[in-house]
């Protein structure tokens, strides 16, 4: 018994447990998703987050302890973001040809994402801190958190809302656009990236390499545009 307690003390102190558990949970979630015919609501990110939250709550583990282990996975987001340049460079010829439609669609989509969140959140009476934290929801976590900090929201809440937005986009994106009769993988991919950043991009890559490349482009461009747009709108509307 004494020895068992010692083992538990060791496990609690090393980052190994939560790192291993995060990988196991994600692996299982992915198997589940594939076995059940890639049903959108079983999105592996969504299932993994819910499962890990339940495990943390059940064991009374603080998020900080969990993150001590999981940060090694989180860290890889940086190099993975850089790696998005590779599929993008593969589309260089088309990019040169279509830069004008891309710039216009990006501006329309980016403005819609921020303005509709602002209007709806205000109409539905969201708390002002929640609303501010929600505005950069469509862009990748590190950009969104930086923007929130700048406008006086809660960066850690933004991280969560960003992930929820990504999951929403990944779940509804392809079925919704298909329902509306859109087949073009370029438009689908680009829209997934603009509205649902990296999680939308991960989903777009499953759809096709081409959709994924454009999704990565949409995500990168919208990240830059939103970083400029959100502070401007907040200032204009005096939030």
């Amino acid at each position, binding site marked *: 018994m004494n020895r068992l307690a010692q083992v538990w003390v060791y496990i609690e102190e090393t980052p190994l447990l939560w790192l291993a558990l995060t990988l196991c949970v*994600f692996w299982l979630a992915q198997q589940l998703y594939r076995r059940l015919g890639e049903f959108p609501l079983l999105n592996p990110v969504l299932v*993994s987050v819910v499962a890990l939250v339940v495990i943390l709550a059940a064991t009374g583990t603080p998020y900080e302890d969990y993150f001590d282990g999981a940060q090694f996975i989180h860290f890889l987001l940086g190099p993975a973001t850089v790696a998005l340049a*590779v599929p993008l460079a593969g589309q260089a010829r088309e990019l040169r040809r279509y830069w004008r439609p891309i710039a216009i*669609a990006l501006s329309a989509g980016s403005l819609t994402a921020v303005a509709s969140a602002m209007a709806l959140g205000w109409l539905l009476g969201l708390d002002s801190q929640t609303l501010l934290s929600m505005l950069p*929801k469509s862009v990748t976590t590190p*950009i969104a958190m930086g923007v929130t900090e700048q406008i006086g929201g809660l960066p850690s809440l933004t991280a969560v809302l960003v992930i929820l937005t990504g999951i929403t986009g990944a779940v509804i994106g392809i079925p919704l656009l298909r329902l509306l009769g859109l087949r073009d993988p370029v438009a689908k991919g680009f829209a997934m990236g603009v509205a649902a950043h990296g999680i939308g991009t991960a989903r777009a890559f499953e759809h096709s390499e081409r959709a994924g490349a454009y999704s990565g482009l949409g995500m990168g461009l919208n990240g*830059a545009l939103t970083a400029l747009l959100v502070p401007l709108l907040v200032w204009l509307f005096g939030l």
Partner: protein
Amino acid sequence: MIGSLAALLLFQLAGEIVVRLTGLPLPGPVLGMLLLFAALLARGSAPRVFNDTSRGLLNYLALLFVPAGVGIISHLSRVTDEWVAITVTLVASTALAMVVTAFSLRALTTGRGE
């Protein structure tokens, strides 16, 4: 593979350094991506190992968002208090942004060989 990983990290590092020096409102990795993109265009094509390593990493992109997502546990009370308004805003706004982006791009590219 190690070389490719080192290259990715160096581009990220370059991005972080430039952002800190210039005060650009962009995260380092995003600038790193733009720098790598420019380098790949200038070079014409990347070595195969490099492409394989990058694709390997991107295959697991979804996994990399899990640790940040679990952070919802720190905001459970706020999120449960406002869950209806948060859900409606988030889902409607995301759907709207996606539809506007996809259809404006399609409208602007049809008839141009797409």
